[in-house]
């Protein structure tokens, strides 16, 4: 039987605040173990949590950017469980009354738009970190991360394929990065994703038993794990088996999911209202202020790039996925407005390739651009004005990246200007033709393809500096008229 997958994602986004959600401890990553701690976030008796205003503001930004309905009043709840990285024995989260519900994210996949619903967004505190591999008989606990603010973003089970799930996650990450609430780094765990997957016979509308998969710390892992689960569940059902509701772990090395051996019975978190925290009320004026402060979002910017710069959908998508790339592109276009499409090509094939190859980006920011956007504009201008060829431009671009010099300077210093002097070019052509008399005869006898051979030889002699158009014309002329 053929099965259809039903997929929902649960995303945890670490918020880019200075201090923790309920206390004045730093959230800075990389501090010495247990350095960023205090009686509140380590759960000592007699302390009171006080909510960080910016956490609420970030939640509002995310909620508004994803078209959610914001609750006038939301409530904090205690989620009770025991684990060494959770010093209080409960996590402060939201349960019955989250801050935002009923939103959506629009994704583009293979030219089609799809809307994925958001069930809810709520705020909560992160747990600490356990280190298991230091000893065979002990685990070590670092509570620096305990109390770092998170947004939990739960989607509706609206996705049907691993590709859709991957695209949803990419779109959501782009939004969170644009509104600057999360750096979106999956490898470092500032963006985490769990996938709920079930399958049902094609055409059926009932839902199958869902399986939760954790430990998905890359986009590739998300798509691969979902693919694996769909296959595993379909095969189980086809073999007459039954799907068990459970939590599985993705093993990225072996590319399989494995059942978490759970010795305990099903979780019972016994949520109840946190008596230490008052219900959160958000005034309409606050919502309005946050709404007014939202930047242009990725989907809007993509549309604008297509309209304003006449870019293909693919280019617009690549350029707008990251805010800093989009800004770089616009700065380059501003410096040289005549050719937005060529600039797009140079960013995709040049700038982004170098950044990827040399790993020049971390989280929210590209840390080192190969060249400033104005210089990229200047480089394309040199090509368009016929001063250098596209081929030479690649050399100049690499040199700009390595030396930091302006393109004009490099071209002058290294004498890379195109040979556009007909006389000079004619001398080179004559030399090449004189050195290959048999080929000249063959060409004249009808082997047109040899033209490329001559072009190549002259280019070689001029170190790539011959203006290609002029070279072609001159060669043709010489080969057809110069009968000796």
């Amino acid at each position: 039987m053929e099965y259809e997958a039903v997929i929902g994602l649960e995303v945890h986004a670490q918020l880019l605040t200075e201090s923790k959600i309920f206390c004045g401890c730093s959230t800075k990553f990389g501090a010495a173990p247990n350095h960023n701690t205090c009686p509140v976030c380590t759960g000592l008796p007699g302390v009171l949590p006080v909510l960080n205003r910016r956490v609420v503001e970030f939640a509002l930004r995310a909620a508004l950017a994803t078209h959610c309905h914001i609750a006038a009043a939301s409530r904090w709840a205690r989620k009770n469980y025991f684990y060494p990285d959770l010093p209080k024995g409960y996590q402060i989260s939201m349960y019955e009354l989250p801050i935002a519900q009923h939103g959506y994210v629009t994704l583009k996949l293979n030219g089609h738009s799809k809307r994925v619903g958001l069930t809810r967004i709520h705020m909560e505190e992160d747990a600490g970190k356990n280190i298991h591999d230091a000893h065979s008989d002990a685990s070590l606990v670092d509570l620096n991360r305990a109390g770092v603010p998170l947004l939990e973003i739960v989607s509706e089970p609206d996705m049907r394929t691993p590709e859709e799930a991957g695209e949803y996650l990419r779109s959501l990450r782009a939004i969170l990065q644009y509104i600057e609430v999360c750096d979106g780094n999956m490898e470092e765990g500032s963006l985490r994703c769990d996938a709920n997957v079930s399958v049902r016979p094609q055409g059926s509308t009932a839902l199958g038993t869902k399986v939760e998969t954790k430990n998905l710390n890359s986009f590739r892992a998300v798509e691969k794990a979902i693919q694996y689960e769909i296959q595993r569940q379909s095969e189980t059902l086809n073999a007459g088996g039954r799907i068990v509701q459970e939590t599985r772990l993705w093993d990225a090395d072996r590319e399989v999911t494995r059942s978490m051996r759970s010795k305990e019975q099903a979780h019972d978190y016994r949520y109840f209202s946190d008596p230490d925290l008052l219900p959160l009320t958000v005034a309409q004026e606050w919502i309005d202020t946050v709404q007014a402060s939202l930047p242009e979002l990725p989907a809007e910017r993509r549309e604008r790039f297509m309209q304003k710069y006449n870019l293909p959908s693919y280019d617009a998508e690549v350029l707008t996925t990251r805010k800093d790339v989009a800004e770089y592109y616009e700065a380059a276009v501003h410096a040289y407005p005549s050719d937005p499409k060529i600039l797009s090509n140079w960013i995709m094939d040049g700038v982004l390739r170098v950044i990827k190859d040399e790993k020049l980006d971390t989280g929210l920011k590209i840390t080192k651009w190969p060249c400033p956007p104005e210089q990229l504009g200047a480089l394309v201008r040199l090509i368009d004005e016929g001063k250098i060829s596209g081929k030479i431009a690649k050399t100049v671009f690499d040199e700009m990246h390595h030396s930091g010099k302006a393109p004009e300077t490099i071209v002058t210093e290294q004498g890379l200007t195109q040979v556009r002097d007909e006389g000079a070019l004619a001398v080179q052509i004559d030399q090449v033709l004189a050195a290959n008399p048999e080929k000249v005869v063959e060409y004249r006898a009808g082997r047109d393809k040899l033209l490329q051979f001559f072009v190549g030889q002259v280019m070689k002699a001029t170190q790539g500096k011959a203006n290609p158009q002029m070279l072609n014309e001159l060669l043709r002329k010489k080969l057809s008229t110069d009968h000796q």
Partner: protein
Amino acid sequence: MRISREEVQRMALLARLELTATEETELIEHFDKMLSYIEKLNQLDTDGVEPTAHAVAVPSPLREDQVTNQADTEALLQNAPAREADFFKVPKIIE
């Protein structure tokens, strides 16, 4: 009885409490009294009354996003049953 021994044992497990049989019997009686009190409350007609999460109707206070704490790892780890360097040391959690 409004609660079974199994239910009390399950709650003890969730709370990580080790109870003797005598303590379990005592707790069954305590729970029974509490549940009958709740049953009494349940008789009250609360239709149209918003569930109360807090007895005081004041808005949640908010603090500015500023780092105000001075680190004191030594003071924190003073209470640790076991430590290693600046980490808490606990029995192995996963194998």
